[in-house]
Every structure is written in structure tokens, then in C-alpha cells.
């Protein structure tokens, strides 16, 4: 456990020492603030229109459903692109710049290395999510968003980010080239994302299966404020699977050299 913490803290510090992390934080913050502003303006326009013409036959507007949920849905798309960029260095870069032997010849198991790297990345990504949370949280000053629903949406975002990070780490364990890792990680995540377009949750077995493996299917439930064991299990399963894959890669490397 000690070794995992040591590696995680080192990784977290290293992320903040790289300009990439700061650039990504800036990009994420800028886009996020812009999207939030657009959604807020739309919300205000709609609410004024409803005030003028009455809301007959239209569902009532809600801050959590009409601003926070779509904003977080949007953040998820940005994270889909950014997390592989943050995760690409984790293992691939250690191999490329040949610092890997210092870690691999230390008394730590491959699982400890993987978990240390993963938690280090997650610590950083939680900072990113914290930044994403700031604009929606300001709405609590001016209105009464549904706390439960907002919390569920954030839980969903954290779980999804965790799965993104684990897949990115797995991609990083496969190569010595961080850019190859970033592209592979992004490709895998995008496939899991767009699987929803092909699938159909009420269709045949295959369509339901394809729909089930997509991130979107499960994330939508969280955005609606629904926390189900099935969706929780899905993200934890993807995360665990990706981490085990990465560990397997490290073990296999010792055999194949």
C-alpha cells in the first residue's frame, strides 16, 4: 500500500510539473466556462419566454436538468479526448526515456506500479473535475438545483473518468511511444462511446449487448439522477478490466523481454 501511495504521489506531482497538464487544465476550464455560459443564456431566454406565454404543455424548466446535466455531458466528451493525453505518459514515457528500470527493479509488484500510476492520474483528474464543478456550483447561489440529481451526475462523471483513465493507462502500457498510447487510448474510448449509436437497448440480443457496452448508455442514467447497481458495476468493471490488462502487459514483458 505504501508503494502505491509513493508512486501515486510522485505521478501526481510529475503531472503538475509538465506544461501539458496546465495547458489541458486551461483548455478544459475555458471550454467548460463557455458551454456553461451558453446553457445559462439559453435557460434564461427559455424561462423568460415561458414567463410571457405561460408554460402550458411544456415540462417545467429545471437548473439541474437543463444546465448542469448537459454541461456535465459536454465535459464528459472533452474528458474523452483529454484523458488519453494525460494518461499517455504514465508508462510509455518511462520506457521511452529509460527511467523504467529504476521503477521495475524496485521491490514493487506490477500491480502496485499500475495502481500507483492510476491513483496518481485520478488525483489529477479529480482536480480537473473539481474545476468543472465550479460553474455549476455557482448556480446553488442563485437557485435551488436538485442536489441529489447533481450529485448523481457528478458521481457518473467521476466513474466515467475513472474508466477513461484506466483505459488510457492500459494503452500506455502497450507501447514505448506516448503518442501511439494517446491515439490507441482515444480510439478505444471513442469506440466504447459510439457503440451506443449502433446499439438499441430495446432491440435484439446483439443490439442490446452493443448498447450495454457503451459509456453513453450508462452515463445518461446518472445524468437523469438514477444511480443503479448495474451502471456502477459497469464502470467499475471497465476500470478493473483495463487495470488488469495493464498489469498483464507488465508481467508478459518480463517473459518476452
Amino acid at each position, binding site marked *: 500500500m*505504501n508503494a502505491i501511495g509513493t508512486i501515486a504521489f510522485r505521478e501526481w506531482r510529475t503531472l503538475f510539473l509538465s506544461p501539458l497538464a496546465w495547458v489541458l487544465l486551461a483548455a478544459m476550464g475555458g471550454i467548460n466556462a463557455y458551454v456553461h455560459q451558453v446553457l445559462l443564456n439559453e435557460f434564461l431566454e427559455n424561462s423568460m419566454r415561458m414567463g410571457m406565454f405561460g408554460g402550458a404543455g411544456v415540462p417545467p424548466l429545471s437548473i439541474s436538468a437543463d444546465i448542469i446535466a448537459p454541461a456535465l455531458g459536454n465535459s464528459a466528451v472533452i474528458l474523452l479526448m483529454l484523458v488519453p493525453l494525460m494518461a499517455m505518459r504514465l508508462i510509455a514515457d518511462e520506457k521511452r*526515456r529509460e527511467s523504467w528500470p529504476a521503477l*521495475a*527493479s524496485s521491490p*514493487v509488484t506490477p500491480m502496485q506500479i499500475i495502481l500507483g500510476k492510476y491513483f496518481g492520474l485520478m488525483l489529477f483528474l479529480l482536480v480537473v473535475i473539481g474545476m468543472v464543478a465550479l460553474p455549476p456550483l455557482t448556480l446553488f447561489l442563485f437557485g435551488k438545483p436538485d442536489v441529489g440529481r447533481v450529485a448523481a451526475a457528478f458521481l457518473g462523471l467521476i466513474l466515467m473518468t475513472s474508466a477513461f483513465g484506466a483505459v488510457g493507462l492500459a494503452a500506455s502500457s502497450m507501447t514505448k511511444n506516448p503518442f501511439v498510447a494517446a491515439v490507441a487510448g482515444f480510439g478505444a474510448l471513442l469506440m466504447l462511446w459510439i457503440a451506443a449509436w449502433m446499439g438499441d437497448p430495446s432491440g435484439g440480443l446483439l443490439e442490446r449487448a452493443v448498447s450495454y457496452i457503451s459509456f453513453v448508455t450508462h452515463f445518461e442514467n446518472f445524468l437523469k439522477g438514477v444511480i443503479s447497481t448495474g451502471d456502477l458495476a459497469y464502470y467499475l468493471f471497465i476500470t478493473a478490466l483495463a487495470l488488469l490488462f495493464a498489469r498483464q502487459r507488465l508481467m508478459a514483458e*518480463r517473459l518476452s523481454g
Partner: protein
Amino acid sequence: MAETMIEIVDLTRTYGPLKALDRINLQVARGQVMGFLGPNGAGKTTTMRILAGLLSPSEGTVKVGGIDLIDQPNAARARLGYLPESPPLYPELTVREYLTYLAQLRGVSADRRKSAVDRAMERCGLTHVAGRLLENVSRGYKQRAGIAQAIVHGPDVVILDEPTVGLDPIQIREIRALIRELGGEHSVLLSTHILPEVRMTCDRVAVIAKGKIVAEDSLDGLEARFQHLAALRVRWNAPPALEAVREIAGVGEVEPGAEGWLITPKKGADPTPELVRRSVEQGWDLRELTPTSRTLEEIFLNLTTTEAEQNGSAKEAA
């Protein structure tokens, strides 16, 4: 004999059909500096990577400080420090941060960590660059930082893979002195193909060629073993006929030359007294008689190349 710190028994490593290591056996005692010689591609780095736990052996056992590397990898690795061919550095860290991180990772307790890092920096001459980023220090300091990380956790065994490659002559001398000093406290396995380095730093030598250990001995022992190959260089003012020399008891091969004749004795024989006596008796006017000992280079070549290859390279040279 002192406690055995590195014990390699029947170690084999294959890469697909290629046999990189073929049943090698090697022992290094506590406090000993063992030179590990061999041409490129002979299996030095493979052996060292297996010892460091980066590669699994295909067959055979490896023990570090009596602990089996396969059964208890973490316990064994805690007693071992490894410097690969290029120092494993984190360029974004300062020298002190880097060593502190690795000391912590290798289980140096918090209260001893600072003194362990200070001591490693002092031994490697890094103290005055402690606060500098690793990416900004010179090649020599990078190499020293690499050695410092291999000893910071006070391991019993230190494995150094070609530690002086790419350094300038002054740095090389300093690093060699450091390695010499490491022996005694640590057991050191040092790979190199620079032979004078072995003479300066090592107690014993193991020579590896084509995945096999072809010799393992003390330096003097190795040279003594090849002493019978040594030749006599003889010069006369009035050189005799070739046959006259050949018939002297104990004389093996005779090569006349302008720089003197090279006379190789038969194994175990010493024709020197007889040569001198005849030279005087028959008036050949002996001017010079020098035993030429085999250099380490020659022994190394003799061990690591087959006769066909030696003839081949002789032809190329001709």
C-alpha cells in the same frame, strides 16, 4: 569463503529460437567486485536484466543474498541496486527529489531517508548539485546520479551495466575509484568491455561469450592460466639457422622476424637456459631475450572467439 551474495545456477534465457544465455553459473561473494566481460551481444545485459528482475529466466535459479528472485521477488529486489546502460533518471526532478523518491519506494524508512540520500550523494560527489534538475546536469553527473540511485537504499548487491561508457577520461577515473570503493560494502557485478577498467576495479573476472561463461577466475589466476601461451622474444647479432633453434628441447614454434624471433615454448617447458647456453657456445651473439606475457586483451580474444574467427580476422587484417 565469504557469504555468497549473487548465486546464479544453470540460468538459461531464450528469445524465441535464440538462446541468449545457456546454462550459466556464477557466484559473487560479499564485498567482491566481479568484472563481467564479454563482447557485445554475448549476454551480459540479459544476465543483468534478469538479476534486476526486469526479465524472467527461462530456466535456472537466481538468488540475491540467499533469497530466490522468483519465489520472493520483492524481498530479493530490496537487497539489490541496478544501474542499466543509460541511467534511469526523471529529468523533471532535482537530484535530491529523485533519490528521495527511490529511497522511499525501496523501503528506506522516513527517519533514515534523509541521511541515506545525503550519504549516497556524498559518496557519488553529488552534494553540490543536490538542488539542480537532472535534465540540467552534465553527462557525468547523470551517470553519478544513476549510481547513487543504485546504492541509496543500502543494497547488498549492486549491478552496474557499463557505467563508464560515454564519459570523459577524468570522469571515468572518478567513477572507477567510486566502484572500487563500493566493493567491500556491497557486492558488485560490473559489466564492461574496457579491459584496463577490469584491472583497476575488479577482484575477479567472469568472461561470457555466446551465452556461456567461458572463464571465471581472479585476474592473476586468469593470466597465470594463459602463461603457457607466453612467448620469448630473442635477438641475435648472428642469428642461427632455423633448424638449430627448433631442435632445442622445449621449443615449440619459432617465428623469425626483423624485430627479433618469437619462440613459443612447448606447454610446461622452459627452453630459456638451453637457449642462452647454445647462443654462447655457438657464438650467435645473444643481444636480447625477453619473455612476453599475454595481455588481458589477448586472453579475452582467446576466450571469446573461436579459432576460425581469429583466422578470419587475421586474413581480413592482412
